[in-house]
């Protein structure tokens, strides 16, 4: 059988196929409503739902809840009749499957292990995702776009969230499920998984590019300078930009909010940057210290 068909029809992976369709559908629906409201806003008209009347809970709302419940129940029942949950061999600590994959919703994080050490990919970054999500209502001080779909009134918020959600979270999950095979190597859908395949990809550290051993003291200092200037420069650059173009925004944000937003943003952007460094320039570490490596 075609390897791609084989992978997407594995019982557990059917859920991911369903997820891809559902997420795409709701993404399109959300943005379609956002653009529709944007046109209404531009024309000075009330947005969808602004002139809502009140309706009785019993029965209009109760009715629709019942219908949804029945549809979900029927859907899940059909799914459960059609596809059987997998049960593999009994657990055996002496036989390691290759690849050993985490549950599908954590595969984005497992994919990050290619680019970061486990303390970052498995602990610090996931914690920062949760912290960042919790922080959203307190750092987004834009009063507009409250209670209706819109893009034009909150472009940055929507773009940043969508990038994190669709690319860094969902796309990486899809890659981890469908494109990673034995040895966590990349397999295209038309490629057969090959357990004896070895890819010799000599990675190097950033300072090796200029001929300095990354584990030497000069290598350590240069690495520290690169990481430090990314963090400090990333902290200062938006400040200077806004100071010049939108000083009012800085006053409204205040110091704590500004630092939180920029820290979360540059940390998030460090992920695609490190991915490019690793995939294009074959760089493993930017900075090596005796305690940890970045």
């Amino acid at each position, binding site marked *: 059988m075609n390897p791609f068909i084989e992978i997407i029809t594995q019982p557990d992976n059917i859920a991911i196929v369903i997820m891809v369709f559902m*997420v795409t559908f709701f993404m399109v629906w959300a943005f379609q409503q956002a653009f529709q409201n944007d046109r209404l806003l531009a024309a000075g008209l009330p947005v969808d739902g602004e002139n*809502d009347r009140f309706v009785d*809970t019993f029965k*209009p*709302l*109760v009715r629709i809840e019942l219908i*949804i419940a029945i549809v979900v129940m029927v859907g899940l029942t059909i799914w459960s009749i059609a596809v059987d949950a997998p049960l593999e061999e009994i657990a055996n600590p002496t036989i390691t499957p290759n690849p050993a994959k985490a549950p599908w919703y954590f595969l984005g994080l497992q994919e990050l292990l290619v680019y970061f050490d486990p*303390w970052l990919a498995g602990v610090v970054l996931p914690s920062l995702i949760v912290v960042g999500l919790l922080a959203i209502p307190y750092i987004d001080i834009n009063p507009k776009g*409250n209670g209706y779909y819109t893009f034009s009134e909150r472009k940055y918020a929507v773009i940043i969230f969508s990038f994190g959600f669709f690319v860094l979270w969902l796309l990486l999950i899809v890659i981890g499920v469908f494109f990673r095979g034995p040895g966590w190597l990349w397999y295209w859908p038309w490629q057969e998984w090959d357990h004896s395949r070895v890819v010799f990809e000599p990675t190097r550290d950033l300072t090796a590019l200029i001929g300095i051993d990354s584990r030497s003291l000069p290598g350590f200092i240069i690495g520290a300078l690169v990481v430090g200037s990314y963090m400090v420069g990333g902290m200062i650059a938006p400040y200077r930009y806004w100071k010049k173009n939108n000083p009012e925004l800085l006053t409204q944000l205040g110091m704590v909010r500004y630092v939180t937003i920029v820290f979360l943003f540059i940390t998030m952007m460090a992920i695609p940057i490190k991915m490019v460094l690793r995939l294009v320039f074959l760089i493993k570490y930017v900075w090596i210290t005796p*305690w940890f490596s970045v």
Partner: protein
Amino acid sequence: MKSLNDITGSVKKNLIWKSIFRRDYRNTVRDRAQAVFGNVFLHLHPVQVRESAVKLRFTWGMGGITFFAFIILVITGVVLMFYYHPSIDQAYTDIKDLEFQVPFGVILRNLHRWGAHFMVIVVMIHMFRVFMTGSYKAPRQFNWGIGVILLVMTFLLSFTGYLTPWDQLGFWAITVGTNMGAATPLLGYQGPFSEYLHITPYNDVRFALLGGAQVGGNALLRSYIWHCVAIPLFATILMFVHFWRVRKDGGISKPQK
């Protein structure tokens, strides 16, 4: 020959019926309100809601679907518990029994597993909807936070359930997952700076998660208790708060300009 109305009329006059349904329903404003606040399950709702709450295009019903998925999982989960022992000698054969011995055992397990995948999917879409409508903005900031914790709870519920069949899939998924705990800065034995706290494989975060230095009987018991008791309890309490705050913060969000 009695008509249908006569029969329903006499049923409704019956003492037992009257003790259950305290008043007749006449489709008046008062009775429609009474139907909601006189019912313990429906009184979660206000008596009247904004049209947006009824139109699918605004909420997509995603929060409600997530809650419904949770209910399905609790019910199928409780039934599964009747057939399951959380010990490494019996867990796997119990699942095999579900497959070959228990009536409808296969479909029961399938419903629980697919329901779990489904809940993870819809809870993420719910978060996306709430973000896209800006519904986390004042006065709903706190409830967004509760929602984020509930999202994490959903992941953890699914994750802890992964090990319970005690097959290769679950065993290695949990091994991969909990190995991350060993990399925790300061508190995991492979994590940065842990040597200063004298952290070893026998006293770190991973050990606490697994109840041992590797995935074994204790890990199975721990994941079972987390999965069936501790996290559902905690998540249920948070759901109370979540739903309560939806009401207290003014119901389904409406355009505020």
